[in-house]
């Protein structure tokens, strides 16, 4: 059978159900018991208001690469002892201790999830009053202009790459769904999609209803399975010990976010899924992920990499190593997704069934 026609035939069998799914709400889920979404936007989950002074009474971060360099080398000097030395420190931040004042976000309101099930003195309270929100990363980056909405440049670029670059389509497929309002046992699988997202009529947003083929080759490392339930339209998954979520990948070089105890909390509709990815971010790999941005990008937000490294280490709050140093930091990403049809590859005759690599 012609492969294209075969795929079409397979897709066609679910098309009406899918069509009705968007028109009639969750009823048609009874037929397919499946719904897929593609990630369109991610933002680090920090509580933020329009009032910068209120959010950050000490001001925004002031010591970026340019400011630290100017203060350290007011009269310049040999390149290897100034520029190269400082650049080298970006990759080997442990070589020198923190030297400059670092502005940590203060306040009591935070965005995230109560990861440890406890209410501690450093925890935040959510805007809806939930106690025990764990998000130490908010303290480290909440007062950095690069991470504030809407103009925070790293997020702006990262989400632009979702629309323009090839590696940035991250999908979730929810199966065993009774309804989008309530399902006691659902399975969530994370995939990498192969197809561009569909831009909407504004040219900037992403339209629901696109189709994404699963990348079973280069995307295999990120195929992950989570279990969860849907209550009152909110999907909550159990954490998985180690999780990966790709974001802000450019030049086709995968740079992955590595989480511990990663979980999802998403409000579902037939067209959208919005909520949080939360867990403990591995400090070393997160630092590597962030400094993959060029120094000039870090300069825009006055984020000196070496100083940031120590701030990150200072606020890390989980997974101590043998020396008792915390190696992971509680954090959350706000995630926005739109519905997408997820196209599974047809098994090739005679070939062993594909399995995901990690789980």
């Amino acid at each position: 059978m012609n492969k294209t026609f075969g795929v079409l035939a397979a897709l066609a069998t679910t098309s009406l159900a899918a069509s009705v799914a968007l028109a009639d709400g969750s009823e048609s889920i009874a037929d397919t018991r499946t719904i897929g979404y593609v990630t369109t936007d991610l933002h680090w989950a920090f509580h933020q208001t329009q009032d910068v002074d209120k959010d950050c009474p000490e001001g925004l971060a002031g010591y970026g690469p340019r400011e630290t360099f100017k203060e350290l080398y007011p009269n310049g000097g040999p390149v290897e002892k100034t520029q190269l030395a400082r650049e080298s420190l970006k990759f080997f931040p442990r070589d020198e201790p923190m030297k400059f004042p670092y502005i940590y976000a203060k306040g009591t309101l935070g965005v995230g999830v109560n990861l440890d099930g406890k209410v501690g003195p450093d925890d935040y309270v959510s805007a809806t009053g939930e106690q025990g929100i764990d998000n130490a990363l908010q303290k480290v980056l909440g007062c950095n202009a690069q991470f504030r909405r809407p103009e925070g440049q790293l997020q702006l670029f990262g989400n632009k790459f979702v629309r323009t670059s090839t590696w940035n389509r991250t999908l979730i497929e929810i199966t065993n769904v009774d309804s989008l309002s309530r399902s006691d046992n659902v399975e969530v699988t994370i995939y990498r999609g192969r197809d561009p997202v569909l831009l909407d009529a504004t040219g900037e947003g992403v339209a629901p209803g696109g189709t994404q083929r699963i990348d079973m080759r280069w995307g295999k490392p990120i195929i992950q399975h989570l279990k969860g339930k849907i209550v009152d339209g909110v999907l909550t998954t159990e954490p998985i010990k180690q999780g990966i979520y790709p974001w802000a990948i450019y030049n086709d070089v995968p740079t992955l976010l590595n989480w511990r105890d990663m979980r999802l909390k998403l409000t579902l509709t037939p067209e959208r899924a919005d909520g949080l990815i939360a867990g403990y971010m591995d400090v070393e790999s997160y630092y590597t992920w962030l400094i993959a941005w060029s120094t000039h990008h870090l300069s825009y937000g006055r984020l000196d990499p070496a100083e940031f490294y120590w701030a990150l280490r200072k606020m890390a709050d989980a997974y101590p190593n043998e020396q008792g140093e915390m190696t992971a930091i509680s954090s959350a990403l706000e995630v926005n997704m739109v519905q997408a049809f997820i196209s599974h590859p047809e098994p090739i005759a005679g070939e062993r069934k594909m399995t995901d690599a990690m789980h």
Partner: protein
Amino acid sequence: MQSIQTRRSRYSRLLGGTFWMGVTSALVLGIAGCANYMTDQPAAEAQPAADLGPTDVTSVPRARFMTAQQYANMIADVFGSDIQIGTPIPPLMRSPDGLLSTSAGSVGIPGGQLMQLQRTAATVAHQVVDKGDIGKELPAHRSYLVPCKPKAENAPDDACAAKFIRSTGRLLFRRSLDDAQVAEWVGKAREGTERLKDFYAGLAGVLEGMLIDPMVLLIVDTTEPDPTRPGQLRLDAYSLASRLSFFLWNSVPNDAVLKAAESGEIQTPAGRARVVEMMLASPRLEHGVRAFFDDMLHYDLFDSLAKDGMVYSRESGAVLKDAREQTLRTAYDHLIVRNRDYRALFTTRDTFMSPALASVYNVPAVPGWAPYSFPEDSPRKGILNHVSFLALHSHPGRSSPTLRGKALRETLLCQVVPPPPPNVDFSAVEDPDANLHTARERLTAHRSNPVCAGCHKITDPIGLALENFDGAGQYRVSEGGVTIDASGSLDGKQFNDPQGLADALHDHPGLPTCLVKRMYGYGVGALTTDVDKPQLAWLNQRFEASGYRVPDLLRAIALSPAFGNVAERPAAPKPAIKTTSLTAPGSVAR
């Protein structure tokens, strides 16, 4: 009356190093056959077969301005699709019969447009003779579009120039150039080469001149005495070849068709039949069929169609572009590739799907265009339920049963819906009472005004059956929280949903007769009138007998005597072309 030969010479004289300078012209084309333009063409001795249609029906000879798509097809067919042309020809105005193409015989060509045509001609000519650039991966077009190499690139080569002019000119002018014409163009090539010290630049100048020649840009029907009807005229062989080619291919005749014209074969019933079969079997038929349906379905409106992105976020420019493509693909596949009943185009569930379009239909897709069939229990069937029809005949932010009903009657049934009276009060639909949740409720309120009721009675019962599709063509079951009642009627036939409307339209006697009327008018480039009734009646008969197969209809039109027979010239013909010219100081025009 200024002869075409005279005009050709005058245009040719404008050729030089800088060609057009400060020339503005206005051409007004009217009904004007150009009798005996090629009177040296031997008349074929043949009798039209009796079953090809009425022999006493004629069409009107015309000079038609080439459409933008015809110009693009001509350049692509003669030089290749990689030659860039821009947009030298603006859209036409739609004629009263609902077609754009039949208005091409009465257009004004302002001076600014001539300048645009000249600019395009220069660009095309430059590309045709360019020497390419390996670094930029640009091919050396001259190496295969110029059929010879000059002895020296910086000096004239009359023999090589003549070879190019004879072969290229034949395709562009749609007829063989005689020796005198070739010699005239060769002289211009020599003049250009000597001035510019570049053989190819000289050749480009000649090509530019050809591309702005009225006999290239205008599709002129030239006539000759019809030996089968003493005292009457018919299209000469070249004009018949062009008429067939623009009808079936929407482009210029190719070498094989021109050979049939040159030999006179095309004027014999058997010869014309052979040529028509060859044209129907050609891949170029797709261009012709798509162009016809693009015209008939008013798809030029897609060029200016915009939806409110805040209301219909999925309806991007890519979606609208693909919506147009989807229906044209469906029509060609259904009618030509599968040779199915025309009426079933309005009930078929088979279509094609693209990823962008699939988001509006809420169905999965595969990359690129792929065949797709809506399931049997899908609310969609037929091209009325395509996004193209539903979105095109809606408002930017809401659906419109009235526009949809009007479009169905006018484009598919050839009926005329009167425009709204000037004092109409639209407030019931545009600024509705919040208690009116659905279009049906709003239109019912609107129809309470007897001035409005008359027309809405003939449009709304059709359009309301499509209310399960919003202004973007997306399926819905409710509006404003109220379940949509999609019942309606079409000329006495009742139905309850969009599928019912599709079935009613399929069975409507006006559906096939409208296609016949439109297609015949499109083929001969003129509005159909009472004079054409016998021809249309015969075509309707043939169409029905064929099971409403469009290839058979195309064949019947192309082979019918009326397609090539022309009316006698008026006793006192009016001037066909009025030309005014203003020559700027310093112009080289002499």
